[in-house]
Each structure stands twice: as structure tokens, then as C-alpha cells.
């Protein structure tokens, strides 16, 4: 087992990883930017290293700074959390070269699944249902039109190196195709340094379903069931839950088995999430693989009783998975609300000093956060300040518990998304689990609602 793990992240996930390490008796190293000097992750790590100024590019995204911090502290592994460098095949490679264990899949797996077009082909080969598409970057206007006619409309243009909605365009007819391909390529070039785009059939208002997998280095792969994350605003998930009300037990088993097979085919190790679109007629289509720990992993932890972060550390250290598929039982229902420091109506960020902070207890409540009374929410980073997760014997109880928990949460000094969450939790369609990725449109402010942009999927 590792002696010391460096956590290449900040905020609640850095604390979450510290918790896991402490439970396993592993020492921790926190890294921090100058803006995070007084953060709790610095306070509770055994050691800490300042790695740069507030700007992420010069601190949390700096591979040399992170590797150097690991070297000067003698850390034997790096946990990248989510975001920042968590899907950086480069960091994983440098770790390998420096004999530091990267807690995540092997670099070649990260690279394969990070390339959307290659990932599509690999999944298709492994028997995973994918959307009809161009099977590679489009080559010029004529080729694009030909492929598009074969696929039919509407379709979607996606960047090969894509993510976060950039380089994406929905195309409704052949006339607008050439112009939109050009725009998407320009955007992809600007965002990722690679202009390649491909075409795929577009699914209107799908549900977002994802499967959590865990693999070890001994060929064992298990899935931990699905999560539904259809409540999204511009690719940002707001509420996640497990299980999904849209899946039958049979579908769950079948999709789970398909994903386990595919993960094994690409020699997947550590934690990963296979994302799917579910259309109105019950078909699943592969979307992408997130080769890292997910923000919403606690809902799965609640219904399975498995500590995913500890499992990640165990398998990275070469141990076998602590559970086999047959041992994994799903019990009850869990929901997560991502509480952001932002205006709940116009979605503008609201950093600043938290003057009062209190979250209720009671059964079935988990709050992963890094904030506290008299703490300042920095404007430099993500606006997520707390993940509130509730568990109930059924979906009804989990929702009732979430509602009372958020109603009894006190956060003063900054604005938060809690009022928006409460509106969603009270919505009859949400309560009935009648929702898809278009659900949030009705909660959008009129001005923004009208604004154009690729809707749904990803994140």
C-alpha cells in the first residue's frame, strides 16, 4: 500500500480524498495556490506545498509544479480528483516516468477514451450501442454532406477533442451544414488546438444515464449501477440520482454487463464512468467515458455502501477489487444537489465571504464541502461549494429528505443555488421522474433561455 499520496486538487474533493487516506492510514500532501493558503485541505493534510499563484494554469494545472511537489515530499502516488489534471494522459505518463503511481487508468487508456472519435470506434467494436455517425473526422464539405445525408437530420457536429459543449453544433437541414461545420471547426481549433470534428445523429431531449465502473490490474471489472444526471443547465449537472427511475432491472443488468465487457476490452483499471443517452423509445447510445472520479460518485456510494475513493487507492496500489459483481447490492435511493455559489436566477457567480454556515443532520444526509463560517469563496475556481447528498428507502423519501435538508441549510453572505434546487425538487415532473436533459429550460431566465447554443448532453 502507498505510504504517502499527493492530492493534485483543491476544495471538497481534496478533503474527500484526505478522508479516504486517513481511513487507510496513508499520509497526505496537499498542494495549493496562493489563493487557497487558508483552505481546509491544507489544514488537514499531513504536509502541504504551495505550487503557484491563484491562476489554475500556473498552479493546479501545472504538471511540473505537481510532480516537483510530489518529489520534494516523497509522495509515492498522486490522486488527481476530478477536473484540473484528472484526465491528463500527460500527467499520467510523467508519473509513470517518475515512478509515482497515478491513481487512475493507464495513460494509453486515458488517451484512447479522451479522443472522442477513437473512443467511439473502440466502443462500437466492444459491442456498445453507439449513435450512427461519421466514424472519424469529416474530410471537407462534400464528404460532410454525403455523410450527413446517410445519417439523416437532425445531427450534431462534435469536436474530436471535445468537451464542455465547445465545438458542438446541432444541424437541422443540409443547407446549414457547411457553415456550421466551419464554425464548429474554428471553435474546436480555438478551444483544443485541434479543429477535427465528426458527425453523429442528434437525439432530441434524451435522458443522461451513466454507469460507474471499477477495474483492477488483475482483470476484474465490476459496475456499481447507474446514475441519472438529466437535470443539467448548459452541460452543468445540477442534480444527480441513483438508481434512475427510467431503467428496468433488466435494462440495468444488460447495460451494466455491456459496459463491464467494454471496460475489460480496453483493459480499463481504476474508476470510470460510461455516459449514455437514453432516447424516448428506450434505446441507449454511448456518449463518452470519463476516466476519473466523478463529482456525483457519492450517490453510488450511498446505494452500494462502497467507498469508491478507497477502492481507487486500493486498485492503484495493485490490490484486487474488494468486491465481486455478485457482492454488490443496490439498496434505497440517493440524490445529490450541487450547491453552487451563484445567483439562483441568473446564474452569475457569487464569490465572497460566508458569514454563517450550518447544515442539518439527521439520517440519510451527507454533505461534502470545504466551506465554513468566516471562509471566503474564491473567485478563481469552480463555483461548487457543497455537495448535499441524501439517501432514503425510496426515491420519495430521498427527495423529502433533500428538501428538508436544503430548507434547513444556512449559508449567509453569498448567494447559492439552493432556491433553484428547492424549485426543482418541488416540480411535479421532477417528483414523478418525468424529465430529460431539456427539463431545466423552464427554469432558465427568459433572456438566457432565448440565447442560442448547443443544449444538453455531456458534462
Amino acid at each position: 500500500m502507498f505510504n504517502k499520496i499527493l492530492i493534485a486538487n483543491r476544495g471538497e474533493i481534496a478533503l474527500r480524498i484526505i478522508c479516504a487516506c486517513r481511513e487507510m492510514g496513508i499520509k497526505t500532501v496537499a498542494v495549493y495556490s496562493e489563493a487557497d493558503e487558508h483552505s481546509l485541505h491544507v489544514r488537514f493534510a499531513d504536509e502541504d506545498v504551495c505550487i503557484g499563484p491563484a491562476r489554475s494554469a500556473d498552479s493546479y494545472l501545472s504538471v511540473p509544479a505537481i510532480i516537483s511537489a510530489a518529489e520534494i515530499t516523497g509522495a509515492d502516488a498522486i490522486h488527481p480528483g476530478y477536473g484540473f489534471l484528472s484526465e491528463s494522459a500527460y500527467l499520467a505518463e510523467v508519473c509513470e516516468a517518475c515512478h509515482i503511481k497515478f491513481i487512475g487508468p493507464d495513460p494509453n487508456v486515458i488517451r484512447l477514451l479522451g479522443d472522442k472519435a477513437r473512443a467511439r470506434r473502440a466502443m462500437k467494436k466492444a459491442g456498445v450501442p453507439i449513435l450512427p455517425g461519421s466514424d472519424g473526422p469529416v474530410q471537407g464539405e462534400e464528404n460532410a454532406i454525403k455523410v450527413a445525408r446517410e445519417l439523416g437530420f437532425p445531427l450534431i457536429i462534435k469536436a474530436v477533442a471535445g468537451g464542455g459543449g465547445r465545438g458542438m453544433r446541432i444541424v437541422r437541414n443540409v443547407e446549414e451544414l457547411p457553415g456550421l461545420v466551419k464554425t464548429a471547426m474554428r471553435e474546436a481549433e480555438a478551444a483544443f488546438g485541434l479543429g477535427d470534428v465528426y458527425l453523429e445523429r442528434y437525439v432530441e431531449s434524451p435522458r443522461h444515464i451513466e454507469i460507474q465502473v471499477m477495474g483492477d490490474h488483475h482483470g476484474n471489472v465490476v459496475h456499481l449501477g447507474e446514475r441519472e444526471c438529466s437535470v443539467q443547465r448548459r452541460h452543468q449537472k445540477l442534480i444527480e440520482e441513483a438508481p434512475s427511475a427510467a431503467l428496468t432491472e433488466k435494462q440495468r443488468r444488460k447495460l451494466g454487463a455491456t459496459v463491464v465487457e467494454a471496460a475489460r476490452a480496453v483493459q480499463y483499471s481504476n474508476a470510470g464512468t460510461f455516459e449514455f443517452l437514453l432516447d424516448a423509445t428506450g434505446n441507449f447510445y454511448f456518449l463518452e467515458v470519463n476516466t476519473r472520479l466523478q463529482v456525483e460518485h457519492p450517490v453510488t456510494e450511498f446505494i452500494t455502501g462502497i467507498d469508491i475513493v478507497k477502492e481507487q487507492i486500493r486498485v492503484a496500489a495493485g490490490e484486487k477489487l474488494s468486491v465481486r459483481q455478485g457482492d454488490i447490492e443496490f439498496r434505497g435511493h440517493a440524490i445529490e444537489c450541487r450547491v453552487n455559489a451563484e445567483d439562483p436566477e441568473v446564474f452569475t457567480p457569487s464569490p465572497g465571504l460566508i458569514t454563517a454556515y450550518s447544515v442539518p443532520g439527521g439520517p440519510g444526509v451527507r454533505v461534502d464541502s470545504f466551506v465554513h463560517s468566516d471562509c471566503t469563496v474564491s473567485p478563481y475556481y469552480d463555483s461548487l461549494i457543497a455537495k448535499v447528498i441524501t439517501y432514503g428507502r425510496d426515491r420519495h423519501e430521498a427527495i423529502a429528505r433533500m428538501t428538508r435538508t436544503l430548507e434547513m441549510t444556512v449559508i449567509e453572505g453569498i448567494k447559492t443555488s439552493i432556491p433553484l434546487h428547492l424549485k426543482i425538487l418541488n416540480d411535479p415532473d421532477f417528483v414523478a421522474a418525468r424529465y430529460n436533459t431539456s427539463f431545466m429550460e423552464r427554469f432558465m431566465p427568459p433572456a438566457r433561455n432565448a440565447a442560442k447554443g448547443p443544449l444538453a448532453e455531456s458534462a
Partner: protein
Amino acid sequence: MNLDDIKDILELVREHDLAEFELERDGLKVRIRKAGREYVLAGTAPAAAPVAAPVAAPAPAPVPAAAVVVDEGVPLAVIKAPIVGTLYRSAEPGAKPFVEVGTAVTKGQVLCIIEAMKLMNEIECECDGEIAAVYVENGQPVQFGDRLFAVKVG
């Protein structure tokens, strides 16, 4: 916090004949030490900066500006570590250190090396002057922002 605020604080400090004054709030830090040899006045946060994109494209980090400290009327430049790594005071093991206290230095002169990811990064002096203090030892790990040397500017 603007210049007037600072003037007001200084006025208060004068009026009360304080030796030290410290204020820390919302990422802003002001420290004033009176009746002594050293004055430091450093702002650590840009006031209400527009929100930065959480994941910006990588760009080279600016080396932090040397803090200027007034010592007995002579300005001192403090050279800080621009990167994390292991510090070496000489070009190779056993060689003479690049600089010692009293060494006259010129802008651009190498003061030490910081090793990060097996790369040797030469840390250069930012002004002409004379080494007034050495804060680090050979082989010592340094964090971003650690003080390395003080240079008497002149």
C-alpha cells in the same frame, strides 16, 4: 482598499504611535511595522477581480515580483522561488556556490538552480546590487513563493 484608506491607516498608526499594524480580510492583507527598520506593504488579492475561467489554457507563470523592503534607507529586493522544486546553490555537486552574502550581482546573473521534473531551472537576479541575505540551503526543497535571497539594490 485604496490609497486614501492606506493613508488613513497610516495616519492612525502615526497618531497612536503603533509599532505594528496588521489587517487581513477577504484575501487582502496589510501589514505595517512602525518605528523600526522594515516597512512592508503588500496587497495579496486584486480587488474584486472578474471571475477567471476555471480551466484556462496553460501559460507561463509570471515570476512573482520581488518584494521591495526598505532597510536602513537602502532598498532590498527579495528574490522568491518562482517554481516548486529542489534548490541547488552551485552548478554541480561540490562546486562553489553561485553567490554568497556580499557577492556583487548584476541583473540576469544566475543565483541558484531549482530542479523540477529533472529540469534544472536557473534562477536569475532581477536587479543589480549585492547579496544581503541567503535564506536557503543547498539541496533544500522550496515551495512557490519561498524567499531565496535578499539583494541590496544599488
